């Protein structure tokens, strides 16, 4: 019973952590892409002949904006779908503690 409570506790906290990881990552990327796209359109509207050059720079920046959000999302998905290392650690600790 105690074991189930411990695992449920970790699962709940993991779910919150995953929500924060993915949610904050996408929030930051969304703001970044919004500013990036808006400024790009502004720049093209002001000087249409610079369009192709700005488009390539925009893709470069899009990759930079994208990168660390991708790491955050990957760690979130790993916690959610993969073998959760936190629960595994608690399970091994319990096993050594109780000797069962």
């Amino acid at each position, binding site marked *: 019973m105690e074991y189930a409570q411990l695992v449920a506790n970790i699962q709940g906290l993991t779910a919150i952590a995953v929500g924060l990881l993915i949610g904050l990552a996408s929030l930051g990327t969304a703001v970044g892409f919004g500013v990036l796209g808006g400024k790009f359109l502004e720049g093209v509207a002001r000087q249409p002949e610079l369009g192709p050059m700005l488009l390539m720079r925009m893709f470069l920046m899009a990759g930079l904006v994208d*990168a660390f959000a*991708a*790491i955050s999302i990957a760690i979130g998905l790993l916690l959610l779908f*993969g073998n959760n290392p936190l629960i595994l650690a608690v399970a091994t600790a319990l096993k050594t503690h109780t000797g069962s």
Partner: protein
Amino acid sequence: MSLLRPTEGEYVQHHLDYLQLNLHTFKLGDGGFWTLNLDTLVISILIGVLFIAVFYWAARKVTSGTPGRLQNFVEMLFEFVDSMIKEAFHGKSALLAPMSLTIFVWIFLMNCMDLLPVDLVPKILALFGIYAVRAVPTDDLNVTFAMSITVFLLIIFYNVKVKGWHLIKEIFCSPFGIWLFPVNILFRFLEEIVKPVSLSLRLYGNLFAGELIFVLIALLPWWMQWTLGGIWSLFHLLIITIQAFIFMMLTIVYMSMAVSSHD
């Protein structure tokens, strides 16, 4: 032990295991620091040899008349990288252009392994009794850090070579003037150390996320895999090209910063 059924967690974990060689005992398995990731090594070297062979072959058969398709393609890539360097790099270096071309094409080809079905290579190798294999070389921190640390050492080398004694003056009084030299040194140190870490973690993170999402898509029922997998493949095609391009572009920019003095 996962939030879902344990078999799914095991499936994901199986796709995150490298084929490792323990250098203490020369048997397969994790050996702590003395471990070789065989899958990463073999696949990246194979891809590198393929890339160099194709480009070498194209260079040997080059004609000034009507070029073939391969020559057109190679020239296109070459001119693309060349124009990037002319735009961003204002020094002289015989090394930078071939290095940038190699970085771009090699990383792109290694990223392209991500577009193979996630189970294809492991299933084929499972027939030969190999348990775990990861087909994407850039999905391994060792490869990305190897590349970025190489670039980092070149940056330091060119800093010292081009600036000479002037480099010390630049480190001591670069942003704030001589009287704040501890802050200047700290800032310079952070600025330099961030370069290799961000370069490699960016590439690794994107590829890792892409691979993980492909693995998760593979867990879905078969009628959903096609649509989601197709959409993610298209999006991922964009990502892998941009990541290869960013690695190359940032290398050029860093090298340009290394050879140009601020005053």
